[in-house]
C-alpha cells in the first residue's frame, strides 16, 4: 500500500470516528435536560473523540511526504481513540447512565465498541503498512 492509499484510509476512518462523535453529541443534547450526568458523559466522550479525530484529519501530512510521518499521526490518534472507546464501552452500560431509551443506550454502546475495535485495527494496519513504531 503506498502513501496515497494509507492516507486515504486514515482520512476515511477518522472521518467515521468524527461522525460517530457527532452522534454522541446529539445523544448528549437529547439527554441533558432530564439526565444531566448521562448528558455530561456523552458530551465528554463525544467531545474528546471529535477533537482527536478532527485533529487527525488536519494533521495528516500530504501523500507525497514520508510514509512514516503519515503513520505517526495515524498511530498517535488511533491509540487515544481506542483508549477512550474502551472507557466508553466500560461505562456506557452502567444502570446509572440509563435514560430509558434502549435505542440510545445500545447505540452508544455500539459506537463505543466501534471506536475500540476499529481503533485497534487501525493501529495494526497503520503499523503494518507504514512500518512506524507503535510506541511513537
Amino acid at each position, binding site marked *: 500500500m503506498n502513501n496515497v492509499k494509507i492516507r486515504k484510509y486514515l482520512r476515511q476512518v477518522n472521518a467515521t470516528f468524527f461522525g460517530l462523535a457527532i452522534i454522541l453529541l446529539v445523544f448528549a443534547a437529547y439527554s441533558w435536560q432530564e439526565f444531566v*450526568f448521562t448528558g455530561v458523559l456523552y458530551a465528554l466522550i463525544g467531545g*474528546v473523540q471529535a477533537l482527536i479525530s478532527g485533529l487527525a484529519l488536519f494533521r495528516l501530512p500530504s501523500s507525497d511526504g514520508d510514509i512514516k510521518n503519515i503513520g*505517526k499521526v495515524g498511530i498517535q490518534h488511533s491509540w487515544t481513540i481506542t*483508549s477512550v472507546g*474502551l472507557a466508553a464501552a*466500560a*461505562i456506557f452500560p452502567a*444502570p446509572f447512565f440509563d435514560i430509558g431509551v434502549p435505542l440510545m443506550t445500545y447505540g452508544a454502546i455500539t459506537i463505543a465498541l466501534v471506536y475500540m475495535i476499529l481503533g485497534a485495527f487501525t493501529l495494526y494496519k497503520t503499523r503494518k503498512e507504514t512500518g512506524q513504531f*507503535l*510506541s511513537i
Partner: protein
Amino acid sequence: MTHENNPKGESENYEWVDKYGDYSQVPVPPGNERSLLNLFYVYTGVLASFAVIMASGALAPRYSLPDLIIVSVVGSVILAVVGAFTAYIGSVSKGSTYLNMRYPFGRLGSQLFGALSSGIASGIGWFGFQAWFFGVIMNTLFPGQWWSHPGVASLWGGVLMVATAYFGYKGLSYLSYIVVPFFLILASVGFMFGFEEMGFSELWHLTPEDPAPLSLGITEVIGMYISGAIITSDIARYAKKHWHGSFAWALQVAILQPFLLVGAGILTIATGEPDIAAALLAAGAGLGAFLVIVLAQWSTNDNNLYVGSLAFNTFIPLKKKYIVVGEGIIGIALAASVGFIAGVTMDPFTEFLGLLGQILPPIGGVLIADFFIYRALKGIDIKERYDFEVGMEIPWVNWAGWLSVFGGIAVAFLLDWGIAAINGLVVGVVLYAVITTVCEMMDIDINLGKTKIGRDGM
C-alpha cells in the same frame, strides 16, 4: 555505521553496544527517540494511580475546596519545576538517572545510591507494596471471589505488571497509551458522583471541622511524588528535543495531578470516600471499576520495576529484562505472602521504604547543582555537560557529591522545619555548589580513582 539496535540506522557516530537491552547502560541512540506525546503519556501513566486518589482522600477532609485547590496546585507546580530540571539533564545526556549520576557521584556512587533509592526501594519494595495493595483493593470491591483474594489478586496482578516492564520502555509506552485517556475519562466520571451527592456551591462553601495549615498540605503533595520528580531522566532520555522531557513532565504534573487530587477530594468531601472505583461500582459500572483498578495499578507499578532494573543494571551485568523478572519474583512473593496472611499490614515496611526514598531528593539536588551550576561555572556548553563517550574516564568516587548527599539526608531527617524533601534537595544543591567551587579555587581534586566506560556502557 548502523547500530545493531537502531533499526532506522540513522546514526553515523553511535559507537555504543546495547548489550543489556533498552539502552539501560548506554545513551539512547539517534532515531530511537519518542514524541512529546509519548513522553507525556508515559509520565502520566505513572501518575494515574490509586495512590494519588487515596492521598487526596487524606488531604481533603482537612481543607475547604478553595484551599484544597491551592494546596494541590502549589505542590504540583513545585514538583513540576524540580522534575523539569532533572528531565532536562536526561534529555541532553540521553542517559538514565543512574548513568547521569556517574558525573556527580562517580561509578560507585551511581551504583550504591541508585540501588538503594530506586533498585531496592522502587524495584522491589514499592513494587511489592503496590502489588499487595492491588490485591487488597480487588478484595474490597469484589469480595467473595477466588480471583479477588488479596493473595491471589496480587499474584496475577504482579505478573501483569512484570509483563510490560519486561519489554522495557516499549512496554510502558503501549500500556500508557491505553491507560491514560481511559483513566482520565473514568476518573472524571467517578468525580461526577461527588457532585451528584452535593452541589458545587455547597461543596465550595463547606469548611472542615479541624482545618490544617496550607503549608502542611503543600508538604504532603510534594512528599508523595518528589521521588518521581528526581528520576524523570529515566523517561526524558527518549526525548527528541531537549525541552520535550521537561515540558511533558511539567504539563502532566502541574495540570493533571491537581485535577486528580481535587476531583478525588470532591468525591471524599461529598461521599466520605475518595474511591473512584467504589463510586463506579455503585453506579453499576462493574467492568469500569475493575478495569480502572487493574490498569491504573498496572501502569504505575511496571514503572517501579523499570526504574529499579535500570538502577540494578549498573552493577548486575545481565539483560535488563532478566533483572525485571528477578525483581518481579521477589516483589510478587512478598506481596502474595502478605496477602495470604489475613489482617497483616505493610505499614512498617512502607515506613522503611519511605526512609530509603528520603535519599533521592539530595541526590536530585546534587545532580541539578552539578549540571546547572558547577559545570556552567566551568564554562561547559549545556549540550556537552553530560556527554558520554566510549572509553571516557569517570571517577570511582566523587567525594563532593557523596558528602553533599549525606549532608542533605542529615538535614532532611534532623531539621524539624519546612518540607523535608525540599530541605534535602536544597542542601544537596548548596553543599555541592559550595564544595566544588571551593575545591576549584583551591585546586583540590573532587574525584577519587578512575575507571573507563566500555562500549557496553559498563
